[in-house]
């Protein structure tokens, strides 16, 4: 009994997803998928360590009294 209840939960979620999908239309869903995938596609560069020379540029400015 417990197993069948557990099995129902994902099915219910799936049904909700399909309902939402019908409501928003397949093209809208495609657009949402594209945006999600684009963000994933372009995210690796954000994880790369920042080169020291960039930090050095900022450090130099920090050590110079503000002229601005």
């Amino acid at each position, binding site marked *: 009994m417990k197993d069948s209840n557990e099995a129902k939960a994902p099915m219910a979620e799936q049904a909700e997803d399909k309902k939402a999908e019908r409501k928003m239309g397949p*093209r809208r869903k*495609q657009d949402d998928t594209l*945006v999600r995938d*684009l963000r994933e596609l372009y995210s690796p560069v954000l994880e790369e360590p*920042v080169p020291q020379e960039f930090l050095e540029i900022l450090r130099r400015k920090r050590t110079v009294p503000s*002229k601005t």
Partner: protein
Amino acid sequence: MSGSPEAAAEPLETLQAPQPRRHGEETQRKLLQELEQLIPRLRRYARSLTRDETRADDLVQDTLIRAIDKLHLFEPGTNLVAWLFTIMRNIHINALRSAKWEREQDPADLELPVPGLQLSNLALRDLARAMGALPDDQRETVLLVAVEGLAYQDAAEIMSVPIGTVRSRLSRARSRLRQLMYGEAEGERGDEG
């Protein structure tokens, strides 16, 4: 005001040129901190513009130097990302115009919107190729709006185009990406915005 006693008391150099607005030390410290946090996003945008990792980092470096030099012109409370992207784009365009950076690229890299990506996911690989097939202006618009999450108005200002152009570029880019990714015929357009 040049004839006022206050003005007369000022050193000569302050009277000769309009003085930039001064940020306090605390404001400047915060701006530099924000600037540092935005470096990864600057690198991402630079790679999209140049499609070359080395040139992208040169562009980021030039942008940081220019931004720091012009930091007094930034108005706190406005969009720092948009301001930095505008600087970066201007430097990039000037470099292209002066032929400082010739577009000699590996054809394989031209397929990818971000060079050097290691894509194990097939869908993402297809998407990378699809993005690489978009015209530069459309790809840039998609990046600014869909990836960077900038408002249409900010994207328009960065690219120096009317907001309607941002909308139409996005619409065409979406249509093309759907076509390339899902095989949708180019003429099938229903909900373009």
